[in-house]
């Protein structure tokens, strides 16, 4: 093998997930329509309206469905041919409550560990360790069907990571969690990705969660990838506005800035001023005028488009593209 060939091979084995022109049909319905996608290490958010094909995409990654066309690789393994190897590398937190009635929380996690191949004693030891990390407390000894939604979610999460998988896939991980639990869960995901090098794929409808923890976003609409990229690049404003977050006479400050040739306007949400300050001299001028106008500023940062806006714009574009495709289709 040539050096570049071996580099490519290494790259394939380092990449958590790669999909190439994946197609999946249920009967005549095309659920995944030529999906090509790389999921790199870090946290990737998978978003899309209901019926977009997110669950089928996850099933394709796990090798649970037979593809009509295309290719899936998980760390270089083909899930259809090597499902055992692939599933050892993956931990899944399903959206729906999936448990074995009659088992306690810790037994459920131990059962999951043993199904993944951990020896019995090690499975129990590690189950407790992971449940401690998930802050499960003594509730872990209660029958799983009597646990609260939040606690069940912790158990499902612990069961997914108990065998220390390299890739964790979560479907709506913050469903039914109170704000504190939600923040804790997102914190754990960030810790897994940043401190332990895990690749995390989060399928969710909560765009706020995506924006707060994800490095990348994939938008799936009607089985096609409509948007994929880093959150930073997707939410960055095209006109490079800066937002001055401040209290005080913002209108007066805007006038003063415009007098100095710096475009400035009140933000639509009235929470600050949007300023176009492309060069360092303009930034200095903004600080000078802010002080002169008696405005109390606490942040001056690049303006980001809300993810919801990006999401809706992409949906509209997808609708227009599909309408155009239908209109131009031969009769």
């Amino acid at each position, binding site marked *: 093998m040539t050096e570049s060939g071996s580099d490519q091979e290494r790259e394939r084995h380092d990449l958590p997930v790669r999909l190439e022109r994946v197609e999946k049909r*249920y009967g005549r319905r095309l659920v995944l329509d030529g999906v090509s996608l790389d999921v790199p290490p870090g946290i990737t958010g998978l978003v899309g309206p209901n019926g977009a094909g997110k669950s089928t995409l996850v*099933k394709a990654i*796990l090798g*649970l*469905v*037979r593809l009509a066309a295309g290719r899936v690789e998980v760390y270089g393994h083909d899930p259809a041919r090597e*499902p*055992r*190897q692939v*599933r*050892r590398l*993956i931990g*899944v937190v*399903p959206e*729906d*409550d*999936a*448990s*074995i*009635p*009659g*088992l306690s929380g810790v037994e459920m996690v131990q*059962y*999951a560990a*043993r*199904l*993944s*191949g*951990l*020896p019995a004693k*090690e499975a129990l030891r*590690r189950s407790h*360790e*992971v449940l*401690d*990390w998930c*802050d499960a407390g003594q509730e872990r000894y209660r029958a799983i069907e009597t646990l609260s939604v939040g606690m069940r979610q912790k158990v499902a999460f612990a*069961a997914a*990571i108990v*065998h*220390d998988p390299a890739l964790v896939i979560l479907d709506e991980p913050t469903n039914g969690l109170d704000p504190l639990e939600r923040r804790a869960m997102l914190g*754990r995901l960030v*810790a*897994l990705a940043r*401190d*332990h090098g895990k690749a995390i794929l989060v399928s969710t409808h909560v765009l706020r969660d995506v924006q707060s923890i994800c490095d990348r976003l994939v938008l799936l609409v009607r089985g096609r990838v409509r948007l994929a990229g880093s959150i930073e690049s997707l939410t960055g404003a095209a006109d490079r506005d800066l937002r001055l977050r401040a209290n005080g006479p913002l209108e007066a400050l805007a006038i003063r800035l415009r007098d100095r040739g710096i475009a400035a306007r009140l933000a639509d949400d009235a929470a600050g001023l949007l300023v176009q300050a492309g060069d360092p001299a303009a930034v200095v001028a903004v600080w000078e005028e802010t002080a002169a106008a008696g405005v109390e500023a606490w942040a001056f940062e690049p303006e980001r488009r809300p993810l919801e806006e990006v999401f809706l714009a992409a949906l509209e574009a997808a609708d227009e593209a599909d309408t155009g495709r239908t209109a131009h289709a031969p009769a």
Partner: protein
Amino acid sequence: MPLHDVGYRGWDGTLQNGTAAGVIAGTGIRLAWKSRWLRRVVLFAWSPALMFAGGFFAFEQAIEGGSVAAGREAARRLDGFGMVGQLVATSLGGTLDDPEAARRIVWSRLLLAFMRAPQAVLLAVVVGLVAPRLIAGDLRARAWLVYFTRPVSRLEYILGKVGVLATIVGVITLVPAVSLWLVGVLVSPSLSVALATWDLPLRVIGAAAAVTVPTVLLALAYSSMTAESRIATFAWFATWVACWVAHGALTGADLAAATRPGGAAAFESDPFADDAAAFVPRRSHRLGWLARAAGVDDTVDRWAWLSLYHAQGVVQAWIFGIEKRFAVVLAPLMTLVAVAVGSLVVLFIRVDAPARA
């Protein structure tokens, strides 16, 4: 936060292969055993073994006493009904010329009777209590996600569930039957009897397998077809009852036709009964030539293939060496094989169907 909380730590041990079926079976047995009703039924299922142990004792007493009558009386006194004594006496045909041969006949029949009469019925009840929930419960609780998102194959999953039922069935049939053989050895005059009858425990295992494999697979197949365990339970018992009724009705019709004046029926002796008065009728059948050409002898209990219970009885009798004509066994054996294979196919299609949907 616990004092010993060490945060998240990686795990670099080696994951084991091929343990999933054992894990599923072990956990399934532990969960099933939590049912108070199951514990009671299993405990009750051992009670017939006490009566049959009396039969072994009575027979060995008869051999020592040198008369069948003594054995019959001893048995009658032991079980209180005379059922075991009757079985002992009729099995021997009233002679004890060759104690070794007599022992083989009587022990085989006692073991067969034990596995047929009380245990097969109890087994149907116990399987009906446990099996319907095994897969239907997983479908209902969406527990298939727990299995098929992990390195667990369909075969391992099915083997695990079969393991749960096979263990329970084994506790009800195999273990007490082998224990009965041990009791027989212990109450016999010499431990050399164990060597003379060494094959009986193996036949017990074979007979238990003949019951377990099709029964368990059929029950699991029903369980895999619905998320409502009640429906699977109903289907299970309905199958047993319907097959039993169909078998009884058709056999009864044969008997009625045979006893009609001028009926074209012939009589054959029942290979399972030594009593010369026990007959089952045989009628000429329109497709009889086909059965004979296929090597299927339908002269005895020709409807046995129709009922799981009766088909198992014929095959078990063959395993114990009581029925020696393979042609008689062929059709019931085919039934059991067909049920087992058909159930296995259904299981393979159904167990991970939600994952593929």
